[in-house]
């Protein structure tokens, strides 16, 4: 599916500052595209966390914009640091499983494990919901490749 939504449009959409016609176009695309829907959900989650952090800082101290910006950047960096190992680990797991049971099976197994875990989708995987995802994946790999395959996924899947 062609997405045809620029990063700027995404940002304005998430910030709710998009013109009505453009906003309707993006909403219609989201209804049809599961990939973008998952990405929007992830972005919405991250934005909400950043706003929450800003509110906490504001409530705790009366701070200058400069300090607020620093805290904001720190929270952003933490979010990024959380997301990178998850993505890297997913890629490694997919590569490992592809050797054993093929590219299609590996991709499907990761998606099925994510769907059964509290994350519900690969895009929503975080450090917090990684363990239940890994457990679901282990059950699938145990059936496909046996105990040794499952041990491999368990050890390769540690964050």
């Amino acid at each position, binding site marked *: 599916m062609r997405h045809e939504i620029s990063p700027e449009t995404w940002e304005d959409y998430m910030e709710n500052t998009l013109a009505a016609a453009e906003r309707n176009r993006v909403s219609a695309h989201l209804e049809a595209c599961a990939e973008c829907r998952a990405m929007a959900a992830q972005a919405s989650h991250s934005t909400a966390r950043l706003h929450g952090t800003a509110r906490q800082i504001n409530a705790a101290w009366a701070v200058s914009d400069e300090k607020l910006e620093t805290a904001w950047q720190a929270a952003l960096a933490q979010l990024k640091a959380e997301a990178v190992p998850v993505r890297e680990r997913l890629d490694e797991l997919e590569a*490992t499983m592809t050797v054993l049971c093929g590219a299609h*099976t590996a991709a499907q197994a990761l998606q099925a494990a994510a769907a059964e875990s509290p994350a519900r989708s690969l895009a929503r995987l975080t450090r917090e919901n990684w363990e239940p995802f890994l457990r679901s994946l282990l059950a699938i790999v145990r059936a496909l*490749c*046996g*105990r040794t395959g499952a041990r491999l996924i368990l*050890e390769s899947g540690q964050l």
Partner: protein
Amino acid sequence: MTKMTRIRWITPGLVWRLLALNLALNLALFLPAQLGWIARPAGALAAVGLLGGLCAYGLALLVCLKIEEEYRDAPLFRWAWLGMAANAAILLFRPLAQDTLAEVLWPDFHASPWRLLLRHVLIVAGNLALGLSLLAMWWGYRRLRLGFHIRRRDYAAMAGLLVLLAALAGVRENLTEAASPFAANRVLQLVGLALLFVIAVAGIVLQRIAAQMNGGRLAVVLRWLTIYVLLRLGLVVLASLLRAAFPDAPWASDVSRFAWQAVAWVFTLTVAYQMRVTLTAAEQLESVRQKRIVDKPAMIS
């Protein structure tokens, strides 16, 4: 180190070499006799057949039992590999019911009516074990819900197999047991044939799953399993055709016998490829552990 690594010497390469050796020995005995240089060495041919079968299915049984241990946490796949082990164990005894060497253990065995009954009981039991194991495997893949699905052309192939079964049943007077005075032999041969078709249908499903896997060691196993089950069916059909076309030619039964010996090695090859799945996983696991040992001091410093 997994238990599997103790039998890691049973590689697909070794099995290919043993298969080649088995066929070469057969040809070395068969061709000079066909060319009229020597008398037909019936005893030596039977000995090669018996030893080849025992060796192929013995190795396969050993590997199947190790694979079964690997799948202890996945009941359907565990039953599938237990079924394969049962198939190998049953087929280990099958040569005893059809080779002249059995005469050593049981005088006048060849003329005994029990010989064919025993042979068909073993065939049906082996087919039943293999059929159930393939069905368990198919059901296991289905339950995983990984997007494997049967296509229209698979249904067409299954329909083709059904037509072939109906055709064979229609001309069943060509079957070896058609004129048997024992009703049990006639019925068992038909049941064995029907099971062979069920197995071939399951083979088509497994081939589709292998294709949809899009590569990987496991797909190789499923492809060889499909080749094994389709070869078995193909040989039964071919043997019937040869018997109908050349009723008095001893070479026809020799060719069919060599082909069955090759089929035994194809089964061993299949389980050797499955063992390679586990060994590959074990190697990757070792590499992950080594990487962690190397990375740890770097993280501390």
